[in-house]
Protein backbone atom coordinates (compact mmCIF):
# COMPACT_ATOMS: atom_id res chain seq x y z
CA UNK A 1 0.00 0.00 0.00
CA UNK A 2 0.91 3.67 -0.15
CA UNK A 3 1.98 4.90 3.25
CA UNK A 4 1.66 8.43 4.60
CA UNK A 5 2.21 10.44 7.75
CA UNK A 6 0.32 13.50 8.85
CA UNK A 7 2.11 16.80 8.43
CA UNK A 8 2.87 18.89 11.53
CA UNK A 9 -0.16 20.88 12.66
CA UNK A 10 1.71 24.19 12.28
CA UNK A 11 2.29 23.57 8.59
CA UNK A 12 -1.37 22.67 8.05
CA UNK A 13 -2.48 25.80 9.93
CA UNK A 14 -0.29 27.92 7.68
CA UNK A 15 -2.12 26.52 4.66
CA UNK A 16 -5.65 26.96 5.94
CA UNK A 17 -5.56 30.12 8.04
CA UNK A 18 -6.50 32.50 5.21
CA UNK A 19 -9.77 30.58 4.75
CA UNK A 20 -13.00 30.47 6.73
CA UNK A 21 -14.69 27.32 5.43
CA UNK A 22 -12.61 24.16 4.95
CA UNK A 23 -13.65 20.87 3.42
CA UNK A 24 -11.49 18.27 5.17
CA UNK A 25 -11.32 15.04 3.20
CA UNK A 26 -10.16 11.61 4.26
CA UNK A 27 -9.74 8.52 2.13
CA UNK A 28 -10.86 5.01 2.98
CA UNK A 29 -7.99 3.23 1.28
CA UNK A 30 -4.25 3.09 2.07
CA UNK A 31 -4.13 6.11 4.37
CA UNK A 32 -6.86 4.55 6.50
CA UNK A 33 -4.86 1.34 6.84
CA UNK A 34 -1.71 3.20 7.85
CA UNK A 35 -3.71 5.42 10.21
CA UNK A 36 -2.72 8.68 8.55
CA UNK A 37 -5.81 9.98 6.77
CA UNK A 38 -8.93 7.88 7.35
CA UNK A 39 -12.22 8.87 8.97
CA UNK A 40 -10.68 8.75 12.44
CA UNK A 41 -7.72 10.96 11.55
CA UNK A 42 -10.05 13.41 9.80
CA UNK A 43 -11.97 13.80 13.08
CA UNK A 44 -8.78 14.24 15.10
CA UNK A 45 -7.33 16.82 12.72
CA UNK A 46 -10.62 18.75 12.61
CA UNK A 47 -10.71 19.12 16.40
CA UNK A 48 -7.00 19.91 16.53
CA UNK A 49 -7.43 22.67 13.98
CA UNK A 50 -10.54 24.08 15.67
CA UNK A 51 -8.74 24.26 18.99
CA UNK A 52 -5.62 25.82 17.57
CA UNK A 53 -7.63 28.46 15.70
CA UNK A 54 -9.70 29.25 18.81
CA UNK A 55 -6.51 29.66 20.82
CA UNK A 56 -5.22 32.04 18.18
CA UNK A 57 -8.43 34.07 18.52
CA UNK A 58 -10.00 33.15 15.21
CA UNK A 59 -12.43 30.53 14.07
CA UNK A 60 -12.74 28.12 11.23
CA UNK A 61 -15.64 26.13 9.86
CA UNK A 62 -14.65 22.57 8.99
CA UNK A 63 -16.81 20.11 7.12
CA UNK A 64 -15.52 16.55 7.45
CA UNK A 65 -15.97 13.91 4.80
CA UNK A 66 -14.21 10.68 3.87
CA UNK A 67 -14.30 9.33 0.34
CA UNK A 68 -14.09 5.69 -0.58
CA UNK A 69 -11.11 6.48 -2.84
CA UNK A 70 -9.82 9.97 -3.51
CA UNK A 71 -7.76 8.80 -6.49
CA UNK A 72 -10.90 7.71 -8.34
CA UNK A 73 -12.95 10.31 -10.27
CA UNK A 74 -16.14 8.36 -9.66
CA UNK A 75 -15.94 8.98 -5.91
CA UNK A 76 -14.62 12.52 -6.24
CA UNK A 77 -17.89 13.40 -8.04
CA UNK A 78 -19.65 12.92 -4.67
CA UNK A 79 -18.11 16.20 -3.59
CA UNK A 80 -19.89 18.36 -6.16
CA UNK A 81 -22.81 19.29 -3.83
CA UNK A 82 -20.38 20.23 -1.03
CA UNK A 83 -17.79 22.15 -2.96
CA UNK A 84 -19.53 25.55 -3.09
CA UNK A 85 -19.72 25.60 0.70
CA UNK A 86 -15.94 25.48 1.02
CA UNK A 87 -13.24 28.12 0.45
CA UNK A 88 -10.50 25.49 0.36
CA UNK A 89 -10.00 21.73 0.48
CA UNK A 90 -7.65 20.00 2.89
CA UNK A 91 -6.94 16.45 1.81
CA UNK A 92 -5.69 13.65 4.01
CA UNK A 93 -5.24 11.30 1.05
CA UNK A 94 -1.93 10.48 -0.61
CA UNK A 95 -0.57 12.75 -3.33
CA UNK A 96 -2.68 10.92 -5.92
CA UNK A 97 -5.88 11.91 -4.11
CA UNK A 98 -4.78 15.52 -3.66
CA UNK A 99 -4.12 15.84 -7.38
CA UNK A 100 -7.39 14.21 -8.35
CA UNK A 101 -9.16 16.94 -6.39
CA UNK A 102 -7.02 19.73 -7.85
CA UNK A 103 -7.82 18.57 -11.38
CA UNK A 104 -11.53 18.22 -10.73
CA UNK A 105 -12.09 21.50 -8.85
CA UNK A 106 -9.95 23.87 -10.84
CA UNK A 107 -10.80 27.07 -8.96
CA UNK A 108 -10.57 25.67 -5.46
CA UNK A 109 -7.33 25.70 -3.42
CA UNK A 110 -6.34 22.16 -2.36
CA UNK A 111 -3.77 21.46 0.37
CA UNK A 112 -2.15 18.22 1.50
CA UNK A 113 -2.44 17.36 5.19
CA UNK A 114 -0.17 14.32 4.94
CA UNK A 115 3.26 13.56 3.51
CA UNK A 116 3.03 10.61 1.17
CA UNK A 117 5.95 8.34 2.04
CA UNK A 118 6.43 5.07 0.17
CA UNK A 119 4.98 1.80 -1.01
CA UNK A 120 5.42 -0.50 1.91
CA UNK A 121 4.18 -3.30 4.03
CA UNK A 122 3.30 -3.60 7.66
CA UNK A 123 6.05 -5.19 9.70
CA UNK A 124 4.04 -5.27 12.91
CA UNK A 125 1.39 -3.13 14.56
CA UNK A 126 2.29 0.52 13.94
CA UNK A 127 5.43 -0.18 11.88
CA UNK A 128 5.62 0.00 8.10
CA UNK A 129 8.67 -0.24 5.90
CA UNK A 130 9.48 0.37 2.29
CA UNK A 131 9.21 -2.63 -0.02
CA UNK A 132 8.72 -1.34 -3.55
CA UNK A 133 9.79 1.65 -5.63
CA UNK A 134 7.61 0.84 -8.60
CA UNK A 135 10.58 0.42 -10.97
CA UNK A 136 8.22 -0.97 -13.59
CA UNK A 137 10.27 -4.11 -14.28
CA UNK A 138 9.97 -6.39 -11.28
CA UNK A 139 13.12 -8.27 -10.31
CA UNK A 140 11.72 -10.16 -7.35
CA UNK A 141 11.59 -13.40 -9.33
CA UNK A 142 15.38 -13.48 -9.52
CA UNK A 143 16.29 -11.93 -6.19
CA UNK A 144 14.52 -14.42 -3.96
CA UNK A 145 11.55 -12.16 -3.36
CA UNK A 146 13.57 -9.35 -1.73
CA UNK A 147 13.91 -6.06 -3.64
CA UNK A 148 17.40 -4.53 -3.91
CA UNK A 149 16.01 -1.38 -5.53
CA UNK A 150 13.72 -0.49 -2.65
CA UNK A 151 15.65 -2.05 0.19
CA UNK A 152 19.37 -1.55 -0.53
CA UNK A 153 20.47 1.97 0.46
CA UNK A 154 22.66 2.08 -2.67
CA UNK A 155 20.20 0.27 -4.93
CA UNK A 156 22.95 -2.22 -5.75
CA UNK A 157 21.91 -4.79 -8.30
CA UNK A 158 24.99 -6.85 -7.44
CA UNK A 159 25.50 -6.45 -3.73
CA UNK A 160 26.21 -6.58 -0.89
CA UNK A 161 28.64 -3.69 -0.61
CA UNK A 162 31.55 -3.65 1.81
CA UNK A 163 29.46 -1.99 4.51
CA UNK A 164 27.23 -4.97 5.29
CA UNK A 165 27.75 -5.96 8.92
CA UNK A 166 25.94 -8.73 10.84
CA UNK A 167 23.02 -8.52 8.46
CA UNK A 168 22.69 -4.77 8.89
CA UNK A 169 23.22 -1.94 6.44
CA UNK A 170 26.08 0.53 6.95
CA UNK A 171 23.61 3.40 7.22
CA UNK A 172 22.12 2.15 10.47
CA UNK A 173 21.48 -0.84 12.66
CA UNK A 174 17.73 -0.51 12.19
CA UNK A 175 18.10 -1.17 8.45
CA UNK A 176 18.53 -4.72 7.26
CA UNK A 177 21.06 -5.40 4.50
CA UNK A 178 18.87 -6.29 1.53
CA UNK A 179 21.62 -8.36 -0.04
CA UNK A 180 22.15 -10.31 3.14
CA UNK A 181 18.43 -11.10 3.07
CA UNK A 182 18.60 -12.01 -0.63
CA UNK A 183 21.53 -14.34 0.03
CA UNK A 184 19.75 -16.05 2.93
CA UNK A 185 16.69 -16.55 0.72
CA UNK A 186 18.73 -17.93 -2.19
CA UNK A 187 20.37 -20.38 0.21
CA UNK A 188 17.03 -21.45 1.68
CA UNK A 189 15.76 -22.06 -1.85
CA UNK A 190 18.92 -23.91 -2.90
CA UNK A 191 19.65 -21.25 -5.52
CA UNK A 192 23.14 -20.14 -4.40
CA UNK A 193 24.53 -20.38 -7.94
CA UNK A 194 22.20 -17.62 -9.02
CA UNK A 195 24.25 -15.18 -6.95
CA UNK A 196 27.13 -15.50 -9.42
CA UNK A 197 25.05 -14.23 -12.32
CA UNK A 198 25.78 -10.56 -12.93
CA UNK A 199 22.69 -8.42 -13.15
CA UNK A 200 23.25 -6.00 -16.04
CA UNK A 201 22.74 -2.24 -15.81
CA UNK A 202 19.08 -1.51 -15.32
CA UNK A 203 16.89 0.19 -17.89
CA UNK A 204 15.32 2.97 -15.81
CA UNK A 205 12.77 3.99 -18.43
CA UNK A 206 9.96 1.92 -16.90
CA UNK A 207 10.96 3.36 -13.51
CA UNK A 208 10.18 6.91 -14.59
CA UNK A 209 13.35 7.70 -16.49
CA UNK A 210 11.30 8.13 -19.65
CA UNK A 211 8.98 10.66 -18.04
CA UNK A 212 5.65 10.35 -16.22
CA UNK A 213 4.26 6.88 -16.54
CA UNK A 214 0.87 5.78 -17.74
CA UNK A 215 -1.01 2.53 -18.16
CA UNK A 216 -3.59 2.26 -20.94
CA UNK A 217 -5.62 -0.91 -20.95
CA UNK A 218 -7.28 -0.99 -24.34
CA UNK A 219 -9.70 -3.67 -23.15
CA UNK A 220 -10.96 -1.42 -20.37
CA UNK A 221 -10.44 2.14 -21.62
CA UNK A 222 -13.50 3.91 -22.98
Amino acid at each position, binding site marked *: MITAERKPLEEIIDYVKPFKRILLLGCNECVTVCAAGGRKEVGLLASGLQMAMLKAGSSIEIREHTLERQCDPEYVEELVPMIDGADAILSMACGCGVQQLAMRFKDKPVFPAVNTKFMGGSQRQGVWDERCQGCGDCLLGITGGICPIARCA*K*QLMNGPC*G*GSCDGKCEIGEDVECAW*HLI*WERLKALGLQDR*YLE*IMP*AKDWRPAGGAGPRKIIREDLAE
Partner: protein
Amino acid sequence: MKTDSYLEKVLAAGHLAVTSECGPPRGATAASVQDKAKYLDGVVDAVNITDNQTAMVRMSSFAGSVLVRQQGMHPLLQMVTRDRNRLAMQADILGAYALGINTMLCLSGDHTKFGDHPMAMNVHDIDSIQLIQMVKTMRDEGKFQGGAEIKGAPKMFIGAAANPFADPFELRVMRLAKKIAAGADFIQTQCIFNIEKFERWMEGVRKMGLHKKCYILAGVTPMKSVGAARYMKNRVPGMDVPTELVERMGSVEKEKQPEEGIAICVETIERLKQVEGVAGFHIMAIDWEEKVEEIVKKAGLYPRPQVQ
Protein backbone atom coordinates in the same frame (compact mmCIF):
# COMPACT_ATOMS: atom_id res chain seq x y z
CA MET B 1 49.03 -6.26 -22.26
CA LYS B 2 45.55 -4.80 -22.30
CA THR B 3 46.56 -1.18 -21.75
CA ASP B 4 49.46 1.24 -21.45
CA SER B 5 48.94 1.45 -17.71
CA TYR B 6 52.21 1.66 -15.80
CA LEU B 7 50.64 -0.35 -12.98
CA GLU B 8 49.74 -3.11 -15.42
CA LYS B 9 53.34 -3.19 -16.67
CA VAL B 10 54.73 -3.49 -13.14
CA LEU B 11 52.32 -6.30 -12.31
CA ALA B 12 52.77 -8.11 -15.62
CA ALA B 13 56.55 -8.08 -15.09
CA GLY B 14 55.93 -10.04 -11.90
CA HIS B 15 56.93 -7.34 -9.42
CA LEU B 16 55.07 -6.80 -6.17
CA ALA B 17 53.29 -3.56 -7.02
CA VAL B 18 52.88 -0.70 -4.57
CA THR B 19 50.12 1.88 -4.74
CA SER B 20 49.12 4.57 -2.34
CA GLU B 21 46.48 7.23 -2.23
CA CYS B 22 46.08 10.94 -2.19
CA GLY B 23 42.81 12.50 -1.11
CA PRO B 24 42.15 15.75 -2.98
CA PRO B 25 41.58 18.89 -0.89
CA ARG B 26 38.31 20.47 0.15
CA GLY B 27 39.22 23.53 -1.84
CA ALA B 28 40.47 24.67 -5.22
CA THR B 29 44.20 24.68 -4.40
CA ALA B 30 46.28 22.65 -6.83
CA ALA B 31 49.29 22.79 -4.52
CA SER B 32 47.59 20.66 -1.88
CA VAL B 33 47.39 17.76 -4.34
CA GLN B 34 50.88 18.39 -5.69
CA ASP B 35 52.47 18.60 -2.25
CA LYS B 36 50.88 15.35 -1.08
CA ALA B 37 51.78 13.60 -4.32
CA LYS B 38 55.43 14.68 -4.03
CA TYR B 39 55.80 12.44 -0.98
CA LEU B 40 54.82 9.49 -3.17
CA ASP B 41 56.99 10.29 -6.19
CA GLY B 42 59.34 7.40 -6.89
CA VAL B 43 57.98 5.56 -3.86
CA VAL B 44 54.88 3.92 -5.37
CA ASP B 45 53.87 2.74 -8.85
CA ALA B 46 50.49 4.48 -8.94
CA VAL B 47 48.61 6.97 -6.80
CA ASN B 48 44.90 6.53 -6.15
CA ILE B 49 43.03 9.82 -6.30
CA THR B 50 39.91 9.40 -4.24
CA ASP B 51 36.46 10.45 -5.47
CA ASN B 52 34.56 12.47 -2.86
CA GLN B 53 35.75 10.04 -0.23
CA THR B 54 33.49 9.46 2.77
CA ALA B 55 30.85 11.33 0.76
CA MET B 56 32.50 14.70 1.47
CA VAL B 57 32.83 17.16 -1.39
CA ARG B 58 36.42 17.49 -2.52
CA MET B 59 38.27 18.52 -5.65
CA SER B 60 37.27 15.97 -8.30
CA SER B 61 39.25 12.80 -8.71
CA PHE B 62 39.54 13.65 -12.40
CA ALA B 63 41.20 17.03 -11.73
CA GLY B 64 43.39 15.56 -9.00
CA SER B 65 44.49 12.81 -11.38
CA VAL B 66 45.40 15.32 -14.06
CA LEU B 67 47.50 17.30 -11.58
CA VAL B 68 49.34 14.16 -10.52
CA ARG B 69 49.85 13.14 -14.16
CA GLN B 70 51.35 16.58 -14.85
CA GLN B 71 53.90 15.84 -12.12
CA GLY B 72 55.03 12.85 -14.17
CA MET B 73 53.44 10.32 -11.84
CA HIS B 74 50.81 7.65 -12.55
CA PRO B 75 47.38 8.48 -11.16
CA LEU B 76 44.74 5.88 -10.49
CA LEU B 77 41.38 7.53 -11.03
CA GLN B 78 38.79 6.43 -8.48
CA MET B 79 35.19 6.62 -9.59
CA VAL B 80 32.11 6.08 -7.44
CA THR B 81 28.65 5.37 -8.84
CA ARG B 82 27.06 7.41 -6.05
CA ASP B 83 27.48 10.84 -7.62
CA ARG B 84 27.09 10.45 -11.37
CA ASN B 85 24.94 8.59 -13.85
CA ARG B 86 26.29 6.51 -16.71
CA LEU B 87 26.44 9.45 -19.11
CA ALA B 88 28.55 11.55 -16.76
CA MET B 89 30.84 8.64 -15.89
CA GLN B 90 31.49 7.71 -19.51
CA ALA B 91 32.15 11.36 -20.36
CA ASP B 92 34.70 11.56 -17.53
CA ILE B 93 36.35 8.32 -18.63
CA LEU B 94 36.79 9.68 -22.16
CA GLY B 95 38.15 12.97 -20.83
CA ALA B 96 40.46 11.33 -18.32
CA TYR B 97 41.90 9.00 -20.93
CA ALA B 98 42.42 11.88 -23.32
CA LEU B 99 44.49 13.57 -20.60
CA GLY B 100 46.74 10.56 -20.03
CA ILE B 101 44.91 8.68 -17.30
CA ASN B 102 44.72 4.98 -18.09
CA THR B 103 44.14 3.28 -14.75
CA MET B 104 40.97 3.45 -12.70
CA LEU B 105 39.16 1.98 -9.72
CA CYS B 106 35.42 1.28 -9.90
CA LEU B 107 33.50 1.74 -6.65
CA SER B 108 29.97 2.26 -5.43
CA GLY B 109 31.07 4.77 -2.77
CA ASP B 110 30.16 5.48 0.84
CA HIS B 111 26.56 6.42 1.44
CA THR B 112 25.83 10.18 1.46
CA LYS B 113 24.61 9.76 5.02
CA PHE B 114 28.23 9.79 6.20
CA GLY B 115 29.27 12.96 4.42
CA ASP B 116 28.68 16.68 4.49
CA HIS B 117 25.72 16.58 2.09
CA PRO B 118 23.45 14.00 3.71
CA MET B 119 20.51 15.75 2.01
CA ALA B 120 21.81 14.86 -1.47
CA MET B 121 20.29 12.17 -3.68
CA ASN B 122 22.42 9.06 -4.19
CA VAL B 123 22.52 8.42 -7.94
CA HIS B 124 23.45 4.73 -8.28
CA ASP B 125 22.19 4.54 -11.86
CA ILE B 126 24.58 1.58 -12.09
CA ASP B 127 26.53 -0.26 -9.40
CA SER B 128 30.26 -0.89 -9.12
CA ILE B 129 30.09 -4.24 -10.95
CA GLN B 130 28.11 -2.69 -13.78
CA LEU B 131 30.65 0.15 -13.89
CA ILE B 132 33.43 -2.42 -14.35
CA GLN B 133 31.41 -3.99 -17.18
CA MET B 134 30.87 -0.60 -18.75
CA VAL B 135 34.58 0.36 -18.70
CA LYS B 136 35.51 -3.02 -20.12
CA THR B 137 32.95 -2.71 -22.93
CA MET B 138 34.30 0.75 -23.71
CA ARG B 139 37.85 -0.62 -23.84
CA ASP B 140 37.44 -4.03 -25.48
CA GLU B 141 34.44 -3.49 -27.73
CA GLY B 142 34.82 0.24 -28.31
CA LYS B 143 31.20 0.75 -27.39
CA PHE B 144 29.30 2.98 -25.02
CA GLN B 145 27.05 1.36 -22.48
CA GLY B 146 24.12 2.39 -24.63
CA GLY B 147 25.55 0.40 -27.55
CA ALA B 148 26.86 3.12 -29.87
CA GLU B 149 30.38 3.01 -31.22
CA ILE B 150 33.11 5.08 -29.56
CA LYS B 151 35.46 6.94 -31.86
CA GLY B 152 38.74 6.48 -30.01
CA ALA B 153 38.08 4.00 -27.23
CA PRO B 154 39.61 4.64 -23.78
CA LYS B 155 41.91 1.76 -22.78
CA MET B 156 41.60 1.68 -19.04
CA PHE B 157 43.32 -0.81 -16.73
CA ILE B 158 40.35 -1.69 -14.56
CA GLY B 159 40.47 -1.96 -10.81
CA ALA B 160 37.87 -2.84 -8.22
CA ALA B 161 37.70 -3.03 -4.46
CA ALA B 162 37.11 -6.05 -2.26
CA ASN B 163 36.34 -6.16 1.43
CA PRO B 164 37.14 -9.57 2.92
CA PHE B 165 35.92 -8.34 6.30
CA ALA B 166 32.34 -7.44 5.47
CA ASP B 167 29.43 -9.81 5.94
CA PRO B 168 28.27 -12.31 4.96
CA PHE B 169 31.83 -13.72 4.83
CA GLU B 170 30.79 -16.71 2.72
CA LEU B 171 29.76 -14.32 -0.08
CA ARG B 172 32.97 -12.32 -0.19
CA VAL B 173 34.91 -14.62 -2.50
CA MET B 174 31.90 -15.01 -4.80
CA ARG B 175 31.50 -11.27 -5.00
CA LEU B 176 35.14 -10.99 -6.01
CA ALA B 177 34.46 -13.65 -8.67
CA LYS B 178 31.63 -11.46 -9.99
CA LYS B 179 33.89 -8.43 -10.19
CA ILE B 180 36.49 -10.42 -12.10
CA ALA B 181 33.85 -11.87 -14.42
CA ALA B 182 32.66 -8.31 -15.03
CA GLY B 183 36.18 -7.34 -16.13
CA ALA B 184 38.28 -6.29 -13.14
CA ASP B 185 42.00 -6.59 -13.93
CA PHE B 186 43.20 -5.79 -10.43
CA ILE B 187 41.79 -5.54 -6.93
CA GLN B 188 42.65 -3.29 -4.02
CA THR B 189 41.35 -4.67 -0.74
CA GLN B 190 39.98 -2.95 2.32
CA CYS B 191 42.64 -2.26 4.99
CA ILE B 192 43.87 -5.53 6.45
CA PHE B 193 44.36 -5.68 10.20
CA ASN B 194 42.85 -9.10 10.79
CA ILE B 195 45.45 -11.11 8.87
CA GLU B 196 44.03 -14.48 9.87
CA LYS B 197 40.66 -13.61 8.34
CA PHE B 198 42.33 -12.25 5.21
CA GLU B 199 44.23 -15.52 4.86
CA ARG B 200 40.98 -17.46 5.09
CA TRP B 201 39.51 -15.25 2.37
CA MET B 202 42.58 -15.79 0.19
CA GLU B 203 42.20 -19.55 0.62
CA GLY B 204 38.76 -19.23 -0.92
CA VAL B 205 40.18 -16.97 -3.63
CA ARG B 206 42.82 -19.56 -4.56
CA LYS B 207 40.32 -22.39 -4.46
CA MET B 208 38.40 -20.63 -7.24
CA GLY B 209 41.65 -19.74 -9.03
CA LEU B 210 40.77 -16.06 -8.87
CA HIS B 211 44.32 -14.95 -8.00
CA LYS B 212 45.34 -16.18 -11.46
CA LYS B 213 42.63 -14.15 -13.17
CA CYS B 214 43.44 -10.80 -11.61
CA TYR B 215 46.07 -9.07 -9.51
CA ILE B 216 45.21 -8.70 -5.84
CA LEU B 217 46.79 -5.77 -4.02
CA ALA B 218 46.49 -6.13 -0.27
CA GLY B 219 45.35 -2.93 1.45
CA VAL B 220 47.18 -1.72 4.54
CA THR B 221 46.86 1.38 6.71
CA PRO B 222 49.26 2.69 9.35
CA MET B 223 47.43 3.73 12.50
CA LYS B 224 48.47 7.09 13.93
CA SER B 225 47.24 6.58 17.47
CA VAL B 226 45.23 4.32 19.72
CA GLY B 227 42.33 6.72 19.17
CA ALA B 228 42.49 6.17 15.43
CA ALA B 229 42.63 2.41 16.00
CA ARG B 230 39.54 2.53 18.19
CA TYR B 231 37.72 4.74 15.74
CA MET B 232 38.40 2.35 12.86
CA LYS B 233 37.42 -0.62 14.99
CA ASN B 234 34.15 0.82 16.21
CA ARG B 235 33.01 3.47 13.80
CA VAL B 236 34.04 2.65 10.24
CA PRO B 237 31.63 0.29 8.46
CA GLY B 238 33.35 -2.80 7.09
CA MET B 239 36.60 -2.43 9.07
CA ASP B 240 37.93 -5.24 11.22
CA VAL B 241 40.60 -4.14 13.72
CA PRO B 242 41.38 -6.92 16.23
CA THR B 243 41.33 -5.93 19.90
CA GLU B 244 44.97 -7.05 20.31
CA LEU B 245 46.08 -4.38 17.85
CA VAL B 246 44.15 -1.66 19.64
CA GLU B 247 45.71 -2.81 22.90
CA ARG B 248 49.18 -2.88 21.36
CA MET B 249 48.74 0.71 20.16
CA GLY B 250 47.54 1.68 23.63
CA SER B 251 50.44 -0.07 25.36
CA VAL B 252 52.98 2.51 24.21
CA GLU B 253 53.06 6.16 25.23
CA LYS B 254 51.32 8.71 23.06
CA GLU B 255 54.42 10.09 21.28
CA LYS B 256 55.52 6.58 20.36
CA GLN B 257 52.14 5.52 18.95
CA PRO B 258 52.73 6.73 15.37
CA GLU B 259 55.96 4.72 15.33
CA GLU B 260 54.13 1.66 16.65
CA GLY B 261 51.44 2.09 13.98
CA ILE B 262 54.10 2.09 11.28
CA ALA B 263 55.79 -0.95 12.80
CA ILE B 264 52.48 -2.84 12.74
CA CYS B 265 51.93 -1.79 9.13
CA VAL B 266 55.38 -3.01 8.09
CA GLU B 267 54.92 -6.31 9.94
CA THR B 268 51.56 -6.74 8.21
CA ILE B 269 53.15 -6.26 4.79
CA GLU B 270 55.90 -8.77 5.67
CA ARG B 271 53.31 -11.36 6.65
CA LEU B 272 51.13 -10.69 3.62
CA LYS B 273 54.11 -11.20 1.31
CA GLN B 274 53.97 -14.86 2.35
CA VAL B 275 50.35 -15.23 1.24
CA GLU B 276 50.11 -16.89 -2.16
CA GLY B 277 48.15 -14.74 -4.58
CA VAL B 278 49.08 -11.32 -3.15
CA ALA B 279 50.43 -9.33 -6.09
CA GLY B 280 51.26 -6.13 -4.27
CA PHE B 281 50.21 -3.59 -1.67
CA HIS B 282 47.93 -0.62 -1.49
CA ILE B 283 49.10 1.65 1.33
CA MET B 284 46.36 3.95 2.54
CA ALA B 285 48.10 6.49 4.76
CA ILE B 286 45.23 8.88 5.19
CA ASP B 287 46.59 12.43 5.58
CA TRP B 288 49.91 10.81 6.37
CA GLU B 289 51.38 10.52 2.88
CA GLU B 290 54.82 11.59 4.15
CA LYS B 291 55.16 8.23 5.93
CA VAL B 292 54.59 6.04 2.88
CA GLU B 293 58.25 6.19 1.85
CA GLU B 294 59.36 4.96 5.27
CA ILE B 295 56.85 2.09 5.16
CA VAL B 296 57.85 1.09 1.63
CA LYS B 297 61.53 1.13 2.56
CA LYS B 298 61.14 -0.73 5.86
CA ALA B 299 58.98 -3.35 4.15
CA GLY B 300 61.72 -4.04 1.62
CA LEU B 301 59.70 -2.74 -1.30
CA TYR B 302 62.25 -0.10 -2.30
CA PRO B 303 63.61 0.81 -4.78
CA ARG B 304 60.62 0.52 -7.05
CA PRO B 305 61.22 -1.38 -10.28
CA GLN B 306 61.60 0.61 -13.49
CA VAL B 307 59.53 -0.90 -16.29
CA GLN B 308 59.14 0.24 -19.89
